[in-house]
């Protein structure tokens, strides 16, 4: 089967890869472009650890056809830090012990970023709803919720999204 070329912006850089026609974006990111930020958890849409932003919208990379991302802007957790400076969400996750094994963390951070980009002042309910599609088997969720709320409080001062 002929490969199909796919080009998109990945964390601000133009990238291209050859994919099988039915490859998911997650396969192309991890196997084609060596971006190991988004994880392969379930491949069924249930765990959320493959979450990415496509044109600013939260999506599941495992259920997104790679070929449909042609020309899009894809953001993954790998692009969240600004060089050595972590994103406020990443700092807050460290400070609040919001990562234990860390397997859910890429998806949690991405879902949280999607929330704060849209709503810099979320309520606890908004946060719970925003991570409803992400499963964490370690933390019991509370440290993650606290971290996201704490990051939101630091945002206006730092003027970052």
């Amino acid at each position: 089967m002929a490969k199909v070329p796919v080009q998109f912006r990945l964390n601000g850089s133009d990238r291209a890869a050859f994919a099988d026609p039915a490859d998911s974006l997650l396969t192309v990111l991890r196997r084609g472009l060596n971006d190991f930020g988004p994880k392969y958890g379930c491949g069924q849409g249930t765990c959320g650890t493959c979450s990415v932003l496509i044109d600013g919208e939260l999506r599941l990379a495992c259920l997104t056809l790679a070929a449909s991302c042609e020309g899009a802007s894809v953001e993954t957790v790998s692009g969240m830090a600004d060089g050595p400076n972590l994103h406020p969400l990443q700092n807050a996750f460290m400070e609040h012990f919001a990562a234990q094994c860390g397997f859910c963390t890429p998806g949690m951070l991405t879902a949280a970023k999607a929330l704060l980009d849209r709503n810099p002042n979320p309520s606890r309910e908004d946060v719970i709803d925003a991570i409803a599609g992400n499963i964490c088997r370690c933390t019991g969720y509370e440290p993650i919720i606290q971290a996201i709320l704490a990051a939101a409080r630091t945002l206006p001062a730092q003027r970052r999204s």
Partner: protein
Amino acid sequence: MPLALRVVQSLSEAAGILAADSRTTLLSGGTLVMRDVNEGRLTDGTLLRVTDPAWRQIQVSGTRIELGAGATMAAILASRELGFLHAAARAVGGPAIRNMATIGGNLFAAAPYGDFAVALLALDAQVMVLAGYGSPRAVPIEEFLAGRSRGEARLVASVQFNRPVAPGDFRFLKVSRVKPKGLSVLSIAAHLPGHASRIGQARVAYGAMGPLPVRARGVERALEGKALDANGIAAARAAALEGVQPVTDAIASDWYRREVLPVHLGRLLANQS
């Protein structure tokens, strides 16, 4: 041979391809199709994508509403004019799923999925279907769902329905064990014209109470001409189980679904859900 991909611009071309080749699968939001690909359930044939922007359009003109089959749950939630449908759109998955899951795909989702289709059934929607090249034909949603269970290969272009007249005429409830996101134990949609005085021509539909979303005809009859007072609600509850064949799955047994359905129906009608 592994899966191939075909991308077409127009809906009518896509409908022609679907009608001609039974090994072609339309990919809409892909939340169910890509699952099948990842799980190795869909390994050959062709995936078909349609890029026509009209497929994703939402049109509200006066009382008539048309939702393109490619419109997502998130697009419904972003429309203030469609506030009465927000509970049904929010019932589908978590935020990422809602950014992907489409109206068209929901009409094909097997129980316990298909929550939005339950709302469309209670709204007496017309499904605009393309059975090949040509223009769409309006099919009443019940007939459409019956055809779906026979596996008819047809492309859904859009769904159309009238806006409920008064606020509170339309109600939706999904019961799940995991909050805020979980699979349906059951879902109920009710369109109750005249609910503030005497109900006329109610439409009530259930999800996960059969292999397909089903109308609760007994409840509809019981509510005819009644007020939504204790008597009206008791009559509806007494008729709640008429015609249901609940599924047994990992979420609930058919027995459990039967036990709790009248309770939730009563709460929805009393606006206590």
